[in-house]
């Protein structure tokens, strides 16, 4: 279980900087370091077991359905990386405490760093491939945040974006590879995958898996041709570069290659891909490192080159080559982190990282100089530093490999070129910054025309505070010590890492400075000689290099990005042009397409259920409906006509319901029809009366075709269903209605009992719609026409007398009818919905006949309150069944002997129906009365109308 503490401690560490922010920079930094150090301590307690080749693992189930477990392991390879991540990580945190300027938001920075540390630890400790991938993506995200930390700088933003795009694109490829592996192996657990090497290599998917995994690893580890994001990531604060781009994130790809070596390695595909890419990256990176002017640029390209070196070694694949690869991972992390720190110091002290403007700093900054000298010599591979040891091993392997058959001699030659270039850029870094005389005739100085600044910086530059150079100095000294005592300091660690990677194949190896006078030593000497020569002739070299400007991958990337964005924009604009009509047409088109597809699978449109005969009345009804619908559509420019035709259709629909045995529906449709016609006529008053313009014939054609196609599809679908026998659950309701619900009107019993919960939802929607309109009409600024288009004013007779009288007479009758309909609802057609609508219409009639003020004075009811009370009654009835221990909305009924009335059935469903009734009345009136009140209260006067009329006419 202690394993889980390692990532948990660093994760908890992300909170420390935020909590200790107020204590000041120094204390906050130290507190931040505490938890990672503790995690490092836990790792170290396992050292002795790991050195003997043990694997410690733990597992907590997380998403077993996906094969994803929270599984961590600790083996030699993990140990090597964990030491780098936590050890160098702590040094860099310490350094960053001094590096960041006091105004910087350091708590955010440190939190990101700690979170990144957690993600890295997660990658190297993950014992499940999916878990590994999760952490892998997390590092990509955090590197985006860290590279873009100075988000006010455009180069930082661009660099961060580029790094994120490249690495997460690779991450997706890796995910695909991992899923394929999991599919073949049947598990994502690391030990299963590592044990299934033969199975994987034998699979026909093997080439695809290797391609995908290598894409992930190469993008992460900045291998050619995906290297281009790394130099741009140098826009990050230097501690980030030192951490992410020397020792951790860029090594994640290499870690993955080493980790999966038992599962995927040992084939010619694997070996040749790695060797080719590694060689190309090694030479390419070294060449461009030599041509860079920016200190961090040199370091970035040299990192690319050294990562290529490690990939090359992994590709060569012999047991000793893998040992050398692991050893170089350690060495490179040590000297590169130190060099980045020194570059940060130089930048900090002189204000520039341009190597042409620097020089002669040795006397001013001797300590920084010493540190750079030590680490730089290690990078150049000069004895007795650690870099020399691993380079010797590389040369030995390169000389002996037979990978390319007769062409194998190419490998040592290219490695030699890479090594010479490496010597050259390392020496250039040291010489150019600390020893070269700064000549004022330098072209660069003329160009930049900042000679004065240069003077100042050179005078002010001095060694930084201890905290800033000590971490780097420590690492640099470690480079020397590892070089001098490799068997004591590095061999056990590398041995255990090698055990984890190649198990029993681990060779007995001996790190030593002196192997005798042999070919690799000669090659080393040649490389150093050539390197010095290259440095001496550097200006000539730059001139040659500037002649052949290679096509920069950055440009390709940027252009591709722009092109993709343009293409996406083009597609988006085709689909989304801001016109709702366009969206609707597209939506309809796809609906038509999909339904047509379904219908085309149907053998015969007419089913075998047989047809019913047609009667004359039905034909007449159909003709009226079709006439109404079509004229409503055609007359849409004359709105009142269109509306009248609509109401014809609505009335005919309710007659249709009568014809086909649905009395409840007919009642509902009829009363809704009345309410919605009143509503729509009111709406006409507020909407522009002028008919809209004719539109283009093409557009009309499109709409007609779409509408016709849709109508045809609906008709065909309906016909197909109607002529087939369908499975129905009707019998259940018909049988259970009386014994289960206590009512003979099955439709009503379904509404208030069987599907009571649905009904509750529906009256809630109704009430909410009502409340929504209430809010929408609040403080409305209305256009109020005072007459029709021809300029004829609205009639000044406000309320017709006959209507007044009739409405008053009808009201008690109508209310009585609604009570009757309501009460009989459970057994005969009727019920809460219909009764509610009838009541609402009866009351509306009063408002129409007498006006808003008159009626509301006599009927001082707040309709929203009515609707909400209705809802509450319905809910309370439902809750009531809980009191008796039944589920929500269980109904019960009984027969009671009530004096004078006789034996009566009373059901709790009736109570629920009262709720429905009140909600319907409240919501309907809430909408209509509120809208109506606006017309009456702010009725335009004659004066106002004269001002308004021309304005309306212009529109």
């Amino acid at each position: 279980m202690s394993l889980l503490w390692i990532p948990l401690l660093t994760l908890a560490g992300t909170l420390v900087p935020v909590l200790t922010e107020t204590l000041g920079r120094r204390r906050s930094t130290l507190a931040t370091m505490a938890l990672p150090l503790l995690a490092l301590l836990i790792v170290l307690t396992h050292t002795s077991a790991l050195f003997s080749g043990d694997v410690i693992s733990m597992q907590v189930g997380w998403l077993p359905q996906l094969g994803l477990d929270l599984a961590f392991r600790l083996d030699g390879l993990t140990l090597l990386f964990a030491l780098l991540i936590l050890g160098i990580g702590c040094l860099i945190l310490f350094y960053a405490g001094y590096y960041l300027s006091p105004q910087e938001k350091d708590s955010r920075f440190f939190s990101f760093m700690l979170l990144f540390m957690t993600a890295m630890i997660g990658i190297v400790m993950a014992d499940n491939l999916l878990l590994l991938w999760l952490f892998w993506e997390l590092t990509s995200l955090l590197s985006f945040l860290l590279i873009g930390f100075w988000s006010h700088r455009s180069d930082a933003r661009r660099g961060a974006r580029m790094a994120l795009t490249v690495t997460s694109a690779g991450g997706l490829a890796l995910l695909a590879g991992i899923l394929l592996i999991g599919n073949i192996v049947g598990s994502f657990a690391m030990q299963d995958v590592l044990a299934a090497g033969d199975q994987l290599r034998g699979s026909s998917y093997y080439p695809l898996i290797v391609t995908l995994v290598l894409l992930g690893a190469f993008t992460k580890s900045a291998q050619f041709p995906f290297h281009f994001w790394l130099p741009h990531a140098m826009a990050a604060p230097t501690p980030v570069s030192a951490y992410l781009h020397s020792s951790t994130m860029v090594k994640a790809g290499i870690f993955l290659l080493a980790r999966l070596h038992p599962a995927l390695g040992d084939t010619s595909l694997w070996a040749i891909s790695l060797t080719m890419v590694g060689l190309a990256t090694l030479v390419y990176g070294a060449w461009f490192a030599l041509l860079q002017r920016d200190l961090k640029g040199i370091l970035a390209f040299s990192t690319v080159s050294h990562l290529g070196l490690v990939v090359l070694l992994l590709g060569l694949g012999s047991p000793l080559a893998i040992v050398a690869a692991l050893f170089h991972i350690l060495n490179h992390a040590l000297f590169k982190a130190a060099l980045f720190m020194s570059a940060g110091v130089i930048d900090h002290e002189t204000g520039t990282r341009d190597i042409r403007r620097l020089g002669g700093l040795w006397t001013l900054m001797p300590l920084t100089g010493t540190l750079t000298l030590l680490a730089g010599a290690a990078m150049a591979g000069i004895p007795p530093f650690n870099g020399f040891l691993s380079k010797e091993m590389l040369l030995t392997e390169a000389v002996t490999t037979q990978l390319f058959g007769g062409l194998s001699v190419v490998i040592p030659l290219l490695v030699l070129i890479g090594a010479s270039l490496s010597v050259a850029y390392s020496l250039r870094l040291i010489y150019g910054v600390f020893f070269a005389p700064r000549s004022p005739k330098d072209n660069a100085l003329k160009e930049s025309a900042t000679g004065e600044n240069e003077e100042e910086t050179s005078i002010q530059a001095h060694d930084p505070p201890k905290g800033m150079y000590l971490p780097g100095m420590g690492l640099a000294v470690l480079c020397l010590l590892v070089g001098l005592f490799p068997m004591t300091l590095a061999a056990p660690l590398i041995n255990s890492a090698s055990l984890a990677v190649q198990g029993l194949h681990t060779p007995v190896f001996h790190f030593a400075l002196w192997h005798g006078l042999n070919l690799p030593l000669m090659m080393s000497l040649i490389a150093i000689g050539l390197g010095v020569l290259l440095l001496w002739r550097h200006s000539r070299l730059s001139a040659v290099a500037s002649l052949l400007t290679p096509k920069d991958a950055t440009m390709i990337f940027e252009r591709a990005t722009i092109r993709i964005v343009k293409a996406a924009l083009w597609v988006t604009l085709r689909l989304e042009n801001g016109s709702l009509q366009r969206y609707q047409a597209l939506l309809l088109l796809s609906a038509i397409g999909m339904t047509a597809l379904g219908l085309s699978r149907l053998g015969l449109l007419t089913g075998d259920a047989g047809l019913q005969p047609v009667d004359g009345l039905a034909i007449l009804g159909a003709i009226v409906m079709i006439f109404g619908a079509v004229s409503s559509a055609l007359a849409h420019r004359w709105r009142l006509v269109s509306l009248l035709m609509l109401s014809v259709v609505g009335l005919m629909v309710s007659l249709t319901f009568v014809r086909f045995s649905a009395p409840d529906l007919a009642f509902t449709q009829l009363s809704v029809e009345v309410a919605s016609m009143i509503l729509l006529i009111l709406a006409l008053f507020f909407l522009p009366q002028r008919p809209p313009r004719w539109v283009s014939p093409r557009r009309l054609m499109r709409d007609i075709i779409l509408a016709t196609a849709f109508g045809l599809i609906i008709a065909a679908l309906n016909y197909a269903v109607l002529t087939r026998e369908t499975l129905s659950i009707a019998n259940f309701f018909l049988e259970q209605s009386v014994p289960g619900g206590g009512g003979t009107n099955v439709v009503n019993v379904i509404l208030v009992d069987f599907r009571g919960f649905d009904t509750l939802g529906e009256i809630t929607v109704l009430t909410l719609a009502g409340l929504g309109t209430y809010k929408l009409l609040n403080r409305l600024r209305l256009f109020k026409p005072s007459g029709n288009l021809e300029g004829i004013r609205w009639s000044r007779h406000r309320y017709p007398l006959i209507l007044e009288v009739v409405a008053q007479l009808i009201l008690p009758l109508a209310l009585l009818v609604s009570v009757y309909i309501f009460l009989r609802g459970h057994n005969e057609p009727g019920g809460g919905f219909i009764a509610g609508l009838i009541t609402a219409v009866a009351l509306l009639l009063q408002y129409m006949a007498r006006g808003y003020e008159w009626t509301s004075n006599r009927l001082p009811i707040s309709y929203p309150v009515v609707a909400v009370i209705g809802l509450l009654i319905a809910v309370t009835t439902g809750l009531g069944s809980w009191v008796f221990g039944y589920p929500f909305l269980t109904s019960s009924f009984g027969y009671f002997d009530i004096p004078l009335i006789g034996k009566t059935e009373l059901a709790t469903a009736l109570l629920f129906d009262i709720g429905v009734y009140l909600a319907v009345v409240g919501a309907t009136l809430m909408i209509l009365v509120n809208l109506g009140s606006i017309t009456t209260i702010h009725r335009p006067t004659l004066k106002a109308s004269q001002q308004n009329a021309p304005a309306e006419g212009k529109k």
Partner: protein
Amino acid sequence: MELLFSLVTGVLSASGIYLLLRGRTFPVIVGLTLLSYAVNLFLFSMGGLHTNAAAVIGASEAPADPLPQALVLTAIVIGFAMTAFIVILAIRARAELGNDHVDGKQGDEGEQSK
């Protein structure tokens, strides 16, 4: 009878769709109402077309399927609530935007724009 019924739903929905594709709010509201008639009839017919067979126990020998009826009944009421909401939304939009085009743009080119 089945053919006639589906013809009516087809024509109703075609007219509704045609109106829905207009550029002004009022025809769209009318179209929506027409379309909801069509949809209600369609849903209702899923229980089959029965004559003189109200779903009341004891009223007929073979009662019609009550479930689609119950569903359509609520659909009618909800449809009314929807229409009301859209009508008021259209009024509000007209008041806020100064025109009654569905895209909210002043209508001269609005209806023709592609």
